[in-house]
């Protein structure tokens, strides 16, 4: 069991050890959907929601796996539960909000192969968080992901107007921006223990 306070868990996941900029988790959607601000906001909403559900699922699975003493099933059961959750979200979204579904369309299945989600489940298990702690951790990670994605999208929208050298265009420029953002986030390191 881990006795870290809720506020410290939240700040830790959102800022100090930001999933995208410090752990490099969820880089694919980070570069894929960060070209436009609006898509970025929607994507981070979806990821945040899936993270929350995945965290709750992971907590339950872990209890079962520990009860039957089968930790080697952890990776496979996590990924299966998470991908079915994503399917569920996809169906719900198609039903409830077709425009959002169209906008995110191809990215929703990709959340399954989003390392941020599985990473969250694994980290929370490794750190031995309790139930509420796990939820706070997921919320923090989701907030951190959203923050990074939205910041990045804002910069990239401006970058479109700038005169970028031919060789730098596209991924290389995005990578440099991400690197500078990541340096900025290092400033938060003083916040935590």
């Amino acid at each position, binding site marked *: 069991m881990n006795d870290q306070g809720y506020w410290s868990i939240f700040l830790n996941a959102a800022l100090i050890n930001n999933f995208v900029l410090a752990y490099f988790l969820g*880089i694919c959607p980070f570069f894929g959907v960060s070209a436009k601000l609006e898509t970025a906001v929607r994507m981070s909403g979806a990821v945040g929601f899936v993270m929350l559900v995945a965290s709750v699922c992971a907590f339950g699975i872990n209890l079962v796996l520990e009860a039957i003493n089968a930790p080697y099933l952890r990776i*496979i059961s996590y990924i299966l539960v998470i991908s079915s959750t994503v399917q569920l979200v996809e169906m719900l979204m198609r039903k409830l909000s077709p425009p959002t579904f169209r906008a995110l369309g191809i990215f929703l299945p990709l959340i399954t*192969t989003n390392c941020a989600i599985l*990473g969250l489940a694994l980290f929370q298990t490794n750190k031995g968080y309790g139930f509420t702690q796990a939820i706070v951790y997921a919320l923090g990670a989701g907030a951190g992901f959203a923050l990074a994605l939205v910041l990045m999208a804002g910069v990239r929208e401006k970058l479109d107007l700038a005169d970028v050298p031919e060789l730098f265009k596209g991924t290389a420029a995005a990578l440099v921006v991400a690197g500078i953002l*990541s*340096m900025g986030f290092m400033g938060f390191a003083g916040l935590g223990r």
Partner: protein
Amino acid sequence: MALRQVSPTDEFIKGLWRDNPVFIQVLGMCPALAVSNTAINALAMGLATTFVLLMAGLSVSLLRNFIPREARIVSYICIIATFVTCVDYAIMAISIELHRALGAFIALIVVNCLILGRAEAFASKHKPGRAMLDALGMGVGFTVALFFIGVLREVLGSGTLFGVDLFPDGFQTWTVMVLPSGGFFAMAMWLLVVNWIRQREADAEKRANERAGEVAS
């Protein structure tokens, strides 16, 4: 694949350069950036990924006629997760130190888009031999790319290569290169190099075509 015959060597070579997973397709970036702070970590990660790619490619290709279309992604993920679990425990048995350095990122090979991508796009449509060749090429391409990033980060960031000091005492290490932001910068630098080479290739080809056109006319 009746339209275009691809020789076995091409199947292998394409992963190294033309379709390099990291530098050209920009797939599997998470591990490429996260564990490339030293050359040895990068190499270990690359080899682990190659193994999973190879085994997953083989299994998916062998089972391609048995897996129903609707359930294919889930089946692929199950296959991949099984091999990743093997690799995870194998690395723990070989070197606990390496296992600690790579941390959760070994488990995260499961969600490396590269592996699922190759299973879906290639292995599910080709014979086992071809699938293995393709997987091997992609794996080697991935490992080489990771190794390049790792070398750049370790040499500049710690002034060492495989833990051996490279520079005289006066060398000021670029600490930023071993920090997370260094991963982004190192990757951007290699992308620039790759883009530059590709552009030169394209220019040369264009000039050659123009010359051929002049001769023909």
